């Protein structure tokens, strides 16, 4: 009987095995509707597609567009868009812009009352390091060893070498933003063992990392971001990043680097980029054709859709008594307005010849902001438009074709002038010539050499680069962002008040501190 039982058992076990139930089999079920890490690079086109994602990280928020399958989470997807986050953190706490919405954390940006758990500063930090992580992964996947192990052809390998320089540019660009906003962040490059916790670096060390990276790749890039390189890294884009880095070196790294700033700005000015005689064109739906553009984040009504970027900038600017059609969109979001101080910088407004004021919308509005939440308190600014310089509406009324100009030539002119005034060498006459070139384009009247002072430069940057994502950086460099300088609603008081100096740096997000307890919070938070 025992023999029989054993036989039965064996038979039973075999039957179960055949039925696929009992044998412990490998339970790996590879995804079928996604491409696996194992085979993605069998297609050489994947290298360019991956590089495209690095650029797309500045423009879109996920893989669906305009929303869906987000790259980062914990915040509304549109709110998390790179340019939107960058712009808001550079503009909303300053004397240039204010936003009326009550979304959690947003009013804190208006009034410099943010905490370390602010969702917008947290999202920007996440966006910056998403770019860093993505670039690092690209660099790990494209080493010579990896390429040769996949039997990559020489042509593709050459192409990929150029892509690697671009990836390093984008990583340096995001680190430049990190130095500006957060200061003391960890430096994580492709050689870092990601199973370990990154180590916090001093702000000056992060500065040095960005500088060395940019210098290292400059030679591998084309001179300007035009033609096949539109929207992509170039020597001019590298030089503009370096120029900003050097101009702020005193604040960020503790030493003046004005001569270097002047050299980088000069290098840009010497490039093929020229001033656009048609100033509004720089912010229009066809601004990709503007000769003044140095480096931009391209958006498109069909191909590159987001609820951030210029979609946000244009829709949020349109509100009371404004015709959405004039902005080339289907409806306003009633959000952004000018602070009165920004209007007052155009001396004599509204009686001024300065054509840069033509963007200001006053109908049915008060200049003063009695209540932040009232969308007709404060003038509007219709600088960015989804209408081409020829007057045609962009390809989609919700998602503009307008690209976001991250760097344009006027900025280089003003950096040159400021570097001269800060003792970086160069020619005072050339500086005056650059400033007046901008003022003359705007019919604002040339200034004299005596008028060319640092305070004038700060104001002129406020007039020329209004709402272009520069103001916070400029005010901090001039020492008037927090503990000095007063404007409407600063410090959450209608008349404005000064705030503690520690607000010059944003806090390291509390999420990050919990994920990486080795980090130390910025002072004051």
């Amino acid at each position, binding site marked *: 009987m025992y023999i029989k039982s054993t036989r039965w058992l064996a038979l039973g076990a075999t039957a179960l095995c055949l039925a696929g139930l009992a044998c412990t089999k490998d339970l790996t*079920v590879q995804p079928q509707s996604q491409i696996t890490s194992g085979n993605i690079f069998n297609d050489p086109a994947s290298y360019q597609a991956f590089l495209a*994602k690095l650029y797309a990280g500045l423009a879109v928020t996920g893989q669906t567009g305009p929303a869906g399958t987000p790259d980062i989470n914990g915040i509304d997807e549109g709110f998390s868009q790179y340019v939107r986050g960058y712009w808001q953190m550079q503009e909303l706490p300053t004397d240039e812009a204010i936003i009326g919405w009550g979304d959690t954390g947003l009013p804190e940006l208006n009034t410099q009352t943010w905490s370390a*758990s602010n969702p917008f500063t947290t999202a920007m930090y996440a966006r910056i390091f998403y770019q860093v992580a993505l670039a690092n992964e690209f660099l790990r996947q494209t080493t010579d060893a990896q390429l040769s192990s996949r039997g990559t052809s020489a042509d593709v390998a050459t192409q990929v070498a150029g892509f690697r320089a671009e990836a390093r540019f984008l990583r340096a660009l995001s680190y430049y933003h990190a130095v500006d906003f957060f200061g003391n962040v*960890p430096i994580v490059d492709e050689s870092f063992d990601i199973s370990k916790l990154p180590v916090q670096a001093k702000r000056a060390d992060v500065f040095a990392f960005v500088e060395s990276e940019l210098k290292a790749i400059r030679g591998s890039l084309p001179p300007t971001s035009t033609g096949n390189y539109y929207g992509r890294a170039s020597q001019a884009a590298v030089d503009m990043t370096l120029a900003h880095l050097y101009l702020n070196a005193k604040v960020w790294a503790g030493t003046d680097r004005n001569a270097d700033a002047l050299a980088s700005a000069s290098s840009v000015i010497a490039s093929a980029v020229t001033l656009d005689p048609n100033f509004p064109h720089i912010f229009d739906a066809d601004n990709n054709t503007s000769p003044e553009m140095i480096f931009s984040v391209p958006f498109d009504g069909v191909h590159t859709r987001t609820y951030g970027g210029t979609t946000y900038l244009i829709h949020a600017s349109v509100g009371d008594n404004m015709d959405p059609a004039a902005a080339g969109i289907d409806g306003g979001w009633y959000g952004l307005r000018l602070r009165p101080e920004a209007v007052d910088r155009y001396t004599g407004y509204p009686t001024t010849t300065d054509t840069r004021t033509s963007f200001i919308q006053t109908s049915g509005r008060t200049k003063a902001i009695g209540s932040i939440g009232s969308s007709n308190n404060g003038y509007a600014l219709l600088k960015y438009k989804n209408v081409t310089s020829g007057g045609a509406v962009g390809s989609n009324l919700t998602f503009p074709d307008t690209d976001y100009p991250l760097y344009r030539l006027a900025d280089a002119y003003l950096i040159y002038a400021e570097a001269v005034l800060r003792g970086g060498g160069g020619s005072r006459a050339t500086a005056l010539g650059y400033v007046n070139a901008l003022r003359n384009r705007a019919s604002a009247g040339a200034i004299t050499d005596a008028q060319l002072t640092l305070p004038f430069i700060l104001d002129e940057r406020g007039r020329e680069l209004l709402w272009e994502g520069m103001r916070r950086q400029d005010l901090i460099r001039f020492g008037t962002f927090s503990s000095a300088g007063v404007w409407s609603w600063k410090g959450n008081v209608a008349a404005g008040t000064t705030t503690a100096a520690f607000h010059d740096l944003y806090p390291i997000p509390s999420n990050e501190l919990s994920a990486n307890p080795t980090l130390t919070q910025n002072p004051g938070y």
Partner: protein
Amino acid sequence: MWRTVIRGVLATFLASAPALAQTGSISGRVVAAEGGAPVVGAQVTVVGTNIGTVSRDDGRYSLTLQAGRYTVVASRIGFARDTVPGVVVNPAATTTLNITLRSAPTALAGVVVVGYGTQQAKDLTGSVATVTTEEFNTGRVVSPEGLIRGKVAGVEVSDNNEPGGGVSIRVRGGTSVNASNEPLYVVDGVPIDIGGGSVGGDGSTGLGRNRNPLNFLNPNDIESITVLKDASSTAIYGNRGANGVVIITTRSGGSGPQVSYTGTVSGSRVVGGPNMLNAAQYRAAVQQFAPSNVASLGTASTDWLGAIERNAGGQEHNLDFSGHGETNVYRLGLGYLDQNGVLIGSRTQRASASLNYSDRLLGDRLALRTHIRGSRSLDWYTPGSVLGEALAFAPTQPMYTAPGTYYQYRDPTSGALIGLAPNNPLEDLAYVQDQATILRSVGNVEGEYRLPFISGLTATVRGGYDVNRADRNVFTPTNIASQLKGDSATRGSIARANHDELHTVGDVYANYRNVLPRLTNSTLDLTAGVSGENFNGTYNGYSANGLSSNLLGLNGVPSFTEAHPGVSVVDHVLRSQFGRANLNLFDRYLITATVRRDGSSRFGEGQKYGTFPSAAFAWRLLEEPMLRDRLPLSDLKFRLSWGRNGNEAIPCNYCAYGAYDVGGPNAQAQLGNVFVTTIRPVAFDANLHWETTTSTNVGFDIGILRDRFTGSVDYYTKTTHDLLFNVPTAAGTALSNNVLTNIGSVRNRGVELMVDGKLIDGGARGFTWNVNLNASHNNNELLTIGRPGVTSIQTGLIAGGVGTTIQVLQPGQPVNSFYVYQHKSVNGAPVTTGADTAMYIDQNGDGIINTSDLVPFHSPAPTWIFGHTSNVTWRGWDASTTIRAYRGNYVYNNVASNLGNYSVLTSPFAPVNLSASVLQYGFTRPQYLSDLYVEDASFVRMDNLTVGYTFDRLAQLSNARIFGTIQNVFTSTKYSGVDPTANINGIDNNVYPRSRTFVGGLSVGF
């Protein structure tokens, strides 16, 4: 003693063969006294031994025992116990004993279905509750969960008020945060997967997400619902047992041949609703707070909610055919349901068929059972935006500007539609079409073979399937306001989603059940087996925008400007081995041990398998000679159990796999002059593994007055470890800012109390009153949410303020506690005016009110749940009611917070209506995070009141009953919103209106 026990256990293996020589058997049929139909599932036991069995589908039973003279007892729920003394068993011979049971409608516990087998209720060691047909809630019950609402301690059933809408069940509180909290449903042995990645698939359109996955099952087909609550009961379903197991057994027929019909008609009307300003109040508010908008105020007085609601009718018909042959029993159930919702546009219709057939073959050795059911559901949805639009539309505006022309908000000067204003809900109702068709079939074939050579050994092979085909179609025409406001190139849309899911199950297990010779009244019951499940889902869908024509509606795609097709194929595999031992010593000590090893494809390499053990002990104290006749009790049992369960219902099938996502055509990057489609490496945790729940249960069962009153008390604690959280990653180390990782733990502790009793027992046709009372208390606490230093994760998105959340996950607090600013109070009244710093308590004292000043405040989960059921019969009359009460559950009134401030009136783009809460608080700007909106939603509700009359003899009918039911008779609550229970997440935002339903019906048997 233990040495004797061990020797006895061993002897059952070694001595079973020689024992055969001296044994004989008893066999026969158990039939009903009324009609002579076979009685299925009757317990047949032999007094003075521990030998017993259960009658099969044809009423037959068979017992093997040593030769001798015995007393045989047969019992079954719904029948009076029958005792047959003096049954003689001769060696190697079969004594025929047919037993006739008289019907007796009492709720005596008998045989309980447990995982992979049945058990006698008296032998249970775990915490298990069974609700049978006669105890079910009646009235218009669309899906099975509604049958047991308020009936079982520790089980919270909440629906969303919509006929056929989603239902959530929590058994002893939620054990998870990011994985599913729903129990596992097992229908006739087939596990129905409703949580986790397999419903809707990864990144699919979410078809069916808000629908109840058990809608395919006609409640009329159900015989009993058993809820396994503690880990020792659920461990046999280790992989998905952490949230409890709900075992649904369908009716198998047996009596007859019989034909019976039950039909009902119903009418529902809305009770209560969100409290909005009426036209006069609104006009006054605009005049005071937004004088500039008075000109565009309008002169009408419109009840917008009333305009989208209706009195809804419904009907249901069920036809049963049942009977039996020489060796087989069968039942065919046909059902039809058509129920309108009280919101115009919503409706569900279901046609279902269910066939159960069982037969005994090979000289009674092989029992073959088949259950096959199929249903076709048609669902019509109210367009999603309508409810919100009706709330927001100003009551002073008219519905129409001319017959057939809908009023819309327009710019007073240009006459253009205002983009951000709400659309007229009546226009959306009239033109947007949204419907779904679901074809589903679930079935299995099961063979149970009594093996020769070894007495008491059976082998069971079961194959089951669940096939689901669901289509959802939405059509939005080009010419309604919502489309006219958008880009002219993309107006009008059609979207279709086609989902195909196939789930197959194979189980093979063996059961050995025998008495332990040498030990009196002792048995051993061993079960061991393997199980495998495969899921495959194909989710196809497309949408097209910018339609050239509206003429094709849902049924075709004209020319279009944009299309978004999608395909997703998803696989999921489970492999399991399990075993269970039940040892009954002297009918006094009951010991159960189970172990299950589960493998799931959802987890990372090396993490796929989990082993889930459990052990339980019960002591029937009354069987102790020293207690037996000294206590005035009829039952006294102590139970103790411990076990471990897993939860694999994580939100995705491939969270542990590295992959690249290909970007869509609207998310390209411009490189030079071309747009390039992107690829994105996906962030993942390769070590993703099981959430594991460890639980302990201590309980007592008590019966007095010959079990006229029975009760049980249970205390449990469940701690879940390796809880999945989307935890922040250290910057630069992962390919996203958050990655789903096993980190964190949560604990549920509670007490449950159940009492059943025959309060008044007037005999067969006299006055009888049966009562069930249950109460449960649960305390939920999040213990950790990750690494040290992680203090909180905000969750619970609300309407109003993009990205604004109202809840928090914070150690030391219940899961999803509300997270709010506390109002300062003066003389007990909250301060609701002034700046934030004047209104709110500055918790950290830094002089500003920001997110650092939020504090946890109550949670949506009730701390106490009470249920009461009464059944009264007298002569032909019967009446029953179910009353339910919650305490300690809080709800965030999102309608009030979103539309509860006067700034809404001044918005230039859309002067919309206000919540009446604004009259109380007077806010002039949004205060989404105010603690005033977190309201106590404790309530008492009479869910059900039924009165029926059964005719004694009516014409040729074997039985006839007419009945009427009112559902949601009353609700008593302080909560100011629509419904204190409508959302299990505790956020009340545009929930489907609550209704009262009147049902009348009759059932007849031929």
